[in-house]
Structure formats: C-alpha cells, structure tokens
C-alpha cells in the first residue's frame, strides 16, 4: 500500500534531480534541512529517527545529497523523508516535507473497532510490518 504522507506522494517517486531542485528551493528560503527515517509510518508516529541534526549551515544541494546517499545506504528499506525547518518568527516549524525513499514492500494498517457506548466505536490503527 502506498503511504501518501508528505508533499509529493501522489506524483511518481522523485528522481534525484527533482530532489535537488526541492532542496535548492528550501535553501533559497533559508530553511534548515533534516533527514529522518522510520520503518513504522503510522500516522501518529511523529518522531522518526533523525539522521543527524538538521543541516543549518548547508551551502548547496550537493552536501545534502551526500547525506541522503549515506542514509539510503544504511536504511534503504525504511521510509526516508526530508523536513525543512523555518526559524522565522510566527512559523518556527516545518515548512516543507516529502518522502525520498520507500521500502520495497510498504506496510498496511489494521483498523480495530472497539464498540463502546451505544453505536459509538473507538478505533485503533496498528501497523502491519
């Protein structure tokens, strides 16, 4: 099942050339770029593992691509995403986020319904890995 998190999940997977163009967009905006990975893309799994700190002093996309290649070499069967952090007052949050690597087989989620009061159900999602 194709997980549709991130900005470009409905497009064909981005080529490295397309990824570079997005990184350059982030750098033009003065955003710091972080690489994160996980094997559990549960929608409530907020904290993916950081592949190092966000790159605050990055000058060009080439440096980023080296980091990304290193992350892919180590965690090629994980999801890898790029997060761009904006420190501007009033934002101070992620401004851009997109997936740049997916596992060969993507997991699915089981939806467990627990009947509670009346016809109300509580739902729990579990990642099937």
């Amino acid at each position, binding site marked *: 099942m194709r997980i549709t998190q991130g*900005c470009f999940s409905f497009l064909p997977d981005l080529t490295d050339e397309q990824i570079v163009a997005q990184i350059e967009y982030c750098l033009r905006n003065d955003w710091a770029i972080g690489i994160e990975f996980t094997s559990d893309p549960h*929608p409530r799994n907020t904290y993916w593992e950081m592949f190092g700190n966000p790159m605050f002093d990055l000058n060009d996309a080439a440096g980023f691509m080296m980091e990304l290649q290193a992350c892919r070499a180590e965690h090629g069967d994980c999801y890898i995403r790029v997060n761009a952090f904006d420190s501007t007052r009033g934002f101070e949050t992620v*401004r851009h986020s997109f997936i740049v690597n997916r596992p060969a087989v993507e997991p699915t989620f089981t939806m467990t319904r627990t009947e509670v009061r009346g016809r109300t159900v509580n739902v729990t999602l579990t990642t099937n890995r």
Partner: protein
Amino acid sequence: MDDKTELKGKQRYAAGVLKYAQMGYWDGDYEPKDTDILALFRITPQDGVDATEAAAAVAGESSTATWTVVWTDRLIAADQYRAKAYRVDPVPGRPGEFFAYIAYDLILFEEGSIANLTASIIGNVFGFKPLKALRLEDMRFPVAYVKTFKGPPTGIVVERERLDKFGRPLLGATTKPKLGLSGKNYGRVVYEGLKGGLDFMKDDENINSQPFMHWRDRFLYCMEAVNRAIAETGEMKGHYLNITAGTMEEMYRRGELAKETGSTIVMIDLVIGYTAIQSISEWARQNDMILHLHRAGHGTYTRQKTHGISFRVIAKWMRLAGVDHIHAGTAVGKLEGDPATVQGYYNVCREMKNEVDLPRGIYFEQDWANLKKVMPVASGGIHAGQMHQLLDLFGDDVVLQFGGGTIGHPMGIQAGATANRVALEAMVLARNEGRDILNEGPQILRDAARWCKPLGAALDTWGDITFNYASTDTSDFVPTASVS
C-alpha cells in the same frame, strides 16, 4: 457660528440640538493615540448634509451621543468618551462617498468581547437617517486590546503539525448533495473523497440535524469513513463535523460526540453569533479541536460597496474571537470576490502584522501581538484546471475546497479527489523548481494528465469553466479586473 468647531462650557450645554461637530465629535487636528481603536467608515451623506458633520454624527452615534444635548454629560470626563472623527477624504472616483476615520478611546470597550465591541461600532449607527448608506471598511485594534483575546485555539502552525502536512495547500471538499442523504450514504461520500486523496471533507453550512439525517448518525458514519481512509492511506484526514445547533447546550453536546469519536476538527456557522463563537472557541481550546468557521450569511452585509461591513473587518473580528479556519473567498470561483480584495482578507488571517496596503483594502497597520494565524479557506466553484491561479494567488497556507469539482467527476469521487491532489502536487513541485506557474500552469497540468487519467478527465470536463463577472466589492485604489 462656525458649526465645525466644538463649543465649550455653558454654550455647549444649553438645552437644545447642536451639530455633532459642535458637540465635540469632530477634531481635524486629533492625533490618534497608539491605544485608540480606529475605524474607517465609507459614508454616503444625504443630499445637503456636509461630509464632516456626517462623519461627526457617525462618531457620535457609535459612542456617547444622543440627538440632543444632555446635562448629565457634565458629570463625566465626557470629552474622553466621545469618539473623534479626525479625517474625511473623498473616495476616489465615487462622487458623494467619503472615507471617515474615527478614533475611539480604549475605555469604551470591554476586554475580550466581540459582542461589546460590535454593539458600539455597528450597534445603532447604520440606521441613522442623515446618511443614505454607511459601510465599515476597516478597523485597527491596539495591542493592548488584542491581548485581551485568546484568538484561534489551534492556529495554522499547530494544525499543520497535528495533521503532519507541510509545504502545500490542504485539500477539501463539501459533501454533496448538501441536503437529503442518509447518514450511511453521506459517510460513503466522505470515505471516497478522503481515500482518493483529500485531506478534509466538510459538512455544508445547513447540515445540522434535519429529518433525513440525525446528527449522531452523521457523526458516527463520518468518523467510520475518516478512520477507514486514514487506515487505507497512512495519512491523517478529517471531516468538519458541523456542530451548529439551536442552543449552546446542544452545540456542546455535539462537540462532545465529535471528540469521543476521535474527530480532529469541528465546524460552526457564522450565524450562531459572536458570543457563541467565542464560547465554542474556548471549548475547542480545551479539547484539542481545530475550529472551522463557515461564513454563512456574510454576503447579506459584506457584498455591497456602499453599505454594510467589509469582510476584512469580519475576518479581523474572527481572528480575535478565535477560529482556526475561515472561508475567505476564491477570486476565481463562483462567489463574489475581487482578487486584490480577497488577498487582503487572506493577509488579515495569516500575517503577524498587516502593513497599510490600499490596493488590497488594508487601511491601517495592525500588529496581531502574536495571536495565532487563521487558515483561510477557498471554497465555491473552483476546479483542478485553476490550480496554478489558486496557488499563485494564495500560496501554501490555505484550504482549497473543490466540492462539485470532486464529487461531480465523471470517473467517480475518488478519481475527482485524486485529480485535485495530483494537480496540486504537480503545481507545487513546479513552483518550487522555479517555473512560472501562472503562464506554464495549463501545460504543467496537461503534462501530469498524461500519466493521471482522472486529472485528464477533470480538465476535459471543467477546463474552460469560468465565472467571469465583475465584482461589486472592488478595491478603490487600483483598476480591477475579474480573474477568469
């Protein structure tokens, strides 16, 4: 006797009727204080009524004045309670209309109450006979007053963090037909739209709890649909459950079920009133709930240029009152809205500080004192073929809602949703790559349609649909054209 100069002492308080300017509601030399609340009115005086006197009358009738002199004014520091008209300018190109600037001392207003604010500013004065028409164009709130409001319960930043969606506008659709579906059929539409790629589905403004669908039924089926769609995509989704009802007690009851079933967002209509909005905003803040406001009814008083209230003022009141989403116009869709004027509303919602921007209808600086930002919603007669225009006009922090443009898709609702999502992502990708989307947009969409059949079908169905009518509520400072 000069009838534009304030009279003093015994002469001022002799029983009888004076001009408003003579009573002290006009002061052309007044320098507004940083702590004053400022209002800009467009006044159209009756024939023969002097514009300065008309402005003074508006200041008087929206603050302390009555039609005649009363001696009891002398018991108070009356001059400080009197609003001051301090500037009157003819409106460019509109004979007989004037912009009247009025300053109000902060003591006139109760803290944290839109009801009190509006009871003064729009309470009596709009029916005042010496004016043919009156329109509240803009307001400036001092930081001291802004800080008495809590503002949006969630705000754009936290909403995005909760939804884990960054770097692109959010996508939504209103469930159609808006009336008549049973709860089970209604939830089907919600599921299809979300599974196909939308972030949000939405109740319409007049979906409450009619005979065809009890609200509990709707909530339970919609949340089944939301949760299934999340499970099928791995992505956070939501449905704006409209909790508008006849009493606050019933609204809280509906909100509680929304919370219990795990909804991230609830919805209210503007017609519930300012106090109800502030109350439900407080509830939303205490219950981790995003609060969506549908501006139902606003067109009755915001649309005409000479009379009523500009929507930019409503947007300011709503940012103070505390909503997270507000419908703010599309410029390109089926509903009223000149592009520059609509961008002005968006800036009111999203900027930390508004600078004066006359072409966009922003007449005052406004420091929002770190009040959270409101997510504007573009909804009404828009479709995938306009994606480049929408992204160019409004940027990332907006919800684009394609109701008919999703549900009316020839290949079905999921396909309609996918078409919109693909069009959006392709356009954001191209913009970030530095391409000129306004000019290359149609080609970017056609290129994506080559591998995305639903987008191709959407463009074939709606590609040429425009609503190209002149706007009635246009900027007074630039020649405007409707975007097609």
